[in-house]
């Protein structure tokens, strides 16, 4: 494998968890809900995925478990914010705090264990093609799943009746309710989808990116995914581009550290966080773009009158 292939491969690996978590949150926000609990759902996905893979010996069972764990956390969030109409910001934070604590507790017995790594896809002939073979046909399966999800979400939101309903609920929940759509049910479903992809993103970290369990191994990626959704102005295509851009920044920092150019490692480690702030500034200066696509009911609770 040449150096350029290696760099692109690592960028894709660093971007995929961001994309997975962010594509779910994009749907959640399109339905008018702000779930700040991504970090917590993700870290729960990471730990339960790792634990289940250890117990069963299968990375795929781990991934399934991670999706269940992420969804379970998100349903807790949904119950709180949709059924009990609690403050979405505070509830999301509580999901994150709870997830970070609970994952530490669950994972305390798994620290330092050698992990199980999800294998790469291998298609005869295609994967062996020079230059592009490994990059296009030789990734791990979750990379393809993340891209498939992105295309699927873009299609559903833009071209289907379901997408129209989701957007209507997010734009104006009162009108959607008046039209006879169940705002709460739609939001429950979207939140659960977001939880599932966050769990998947967590599993990616503990079963592919660095196949082991480290406390707080999400390292703020859940928050960066949230920022990516804002950065994408709620458009899936732009989201994927943003995720790869950020994956690139992350890897750039790691590579520069490896080369030891005398730049403090902490400065390089802080690059993704600095880049997040800069990206948010850039996107916010273009108010027209943000205002057009921001779901109008974002973050507002809905209580049906009866």
């Amino acid at each position, binding site marked *: 494998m040449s150096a350029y292939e290696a760099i692109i491969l690592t960028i894709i690996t660093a971007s995929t968890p961001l994309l997975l978590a962010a594509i779910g949150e994009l749907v959640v926000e399109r339905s008018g809900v702000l779930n*700040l609990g991504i970090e917590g759902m993700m870290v729960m996905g990471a730990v339960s995925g790792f634990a289940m893979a250890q117990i069963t010996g299968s990375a795929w069972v781990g991934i399934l478990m991670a999706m269940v764990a992420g969804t379970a956390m998100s349903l*807790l969030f949904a119950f*709180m914010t949709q*059924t*009990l*109409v*609690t*403050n979405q*910001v*505070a*509830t999301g*934070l*509580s999901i994150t*705090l*709870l*997830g*970070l*604590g*609970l994952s*530490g*507790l669950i994972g*305390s017995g798994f620290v330092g264990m050698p992990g199980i790594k999800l294998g790469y896809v291998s298609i005869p002939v295609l994967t062996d093609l020079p230059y592009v073979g490994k990059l296009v046909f030789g990734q791990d399966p979750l990379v393809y799943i993340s891209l498939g999800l992105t295309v699927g979400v873009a299609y559903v939101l833009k071209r289907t009746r379901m997408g129209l309903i989701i957007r209507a609920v997010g734009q104006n929940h009162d009108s959607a309710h008046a039209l006879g759509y169940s705002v709460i049910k739609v939001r429950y479903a979207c939140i659960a989808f977001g939880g599932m992809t966050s769990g998947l993103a967590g599993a990616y970290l503990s079963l592919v990116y660095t196949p082991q369990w480290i406390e707080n191994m999400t*390292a*703020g990626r859940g*928050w960066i995914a*949230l*920022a990516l959704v*804002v950065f994408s102005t709620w458009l899936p295509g732009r989201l994927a581009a943003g995720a790869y851009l950020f994956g690139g920044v992350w890897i750039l920092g790691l590579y520069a550290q490896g080369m030891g150019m005398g730049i*403090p490692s*902490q*400065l390089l*480690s*802080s690059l993704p*966080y*600095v880049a*997040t*702030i800069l990206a*948010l*500034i850039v996107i*916010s*200066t273009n*108010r027209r773009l*943000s205002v057009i696509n921001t779901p109008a009911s974002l973050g507002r609770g809905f*209580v049906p009158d*009866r």
Partner: protein
Amino acid sequence: MQLILEKRAQASRLMHFASPLLAITLTVLLGGVVFAAMGQPPLTALYIYFIDPLTNLWSIEEVLVKAAPLVLIGVGLSVTFRANVWNIGAEGQLTAGAILGAIIPIFFAEWQSPLAFVAMLALGMLGGALLAAIPAFLKIRFGVNEILTSLMLVYIAQLLLDWLVRGPWKDPHGYNFPKSVAFDGWHLIPMFGDGRVHLGLIIALVTALILYWVMHRTIKGFEVRVIGNAPRAGAFAGFSQTKMVWFCFLLSGGLAGLAGIIEVAGPIGQLQPNISPNYGFTAIIVAFLGRLNPIGVIFAGLLLAISYIGGEGVQIELGISDKTAQVFQGMLLFFILMCDTLIHYRVRLLKAKGGAQ
């Protein structure tokens, strides 16, 4: 069966105060279940967790030491959240305060006078306020979401501290440990007696009382509540949303920074990579549990401080991961938000489907 909410005509005063108690009860109950699930005797574990810390002088002192930063940060956040401004980067502001305040003991070690200590506190506040000014500025100038920016700055501030204590600020005679020089003399916070309780506790309590007075007896407090509850009404009354964002961030950031320098000048005594067991995040729970009311925050701060000591207790006595504390804290915030629904709504279970619709 379906759960439905009925809006109360008036917010329930009773539930306003009963909700935190209910939340604490639920946390203790579920906590017992968690302990049982881990194969521990639930009652013994709960006793060690919640009661033991209050049974001897040593641990009571330790509770007070931990309560000081929680209350100090929590009161700032309570005002901020009241105004519907979301500063969740207090952990970073705490770090920034510790860094800036530490300039005096690290670079002016000779300057030994009470004034040096006051300067440290002032620099600490300045450090926290400066870091908090970034999300405030970005929100006002560009409309950038303050939740994300304030949180990103936590990671940046912690990495900056890490670099300083491993690099330029490392104690040259410290056997290469990532620590600054040990603070000394007037650069350490005055202690009470020969225990561990220090002046920071008084500072926290006085700050809480002052902010209580500000919130309930002055026009500024009224402004905070109006803007928080009804931004449009606030605008008609001539209250500036922009100034409110600045006020909240500078206040909560300054107090978090103050807590930071007090921590390093007190219980820790020097700069090191890790200076806070997530006080800045736990203070968010403190603010909510304390009803976003400065006096309530004092009690909430004490309770959360117990949760830290209790977590250490079960770790030592039962060999459970110290993460238990974080789980309890998360559960507590969860239940408090859940119970707060009862302030504005009555909850009913509808038996047959479609009856009321």
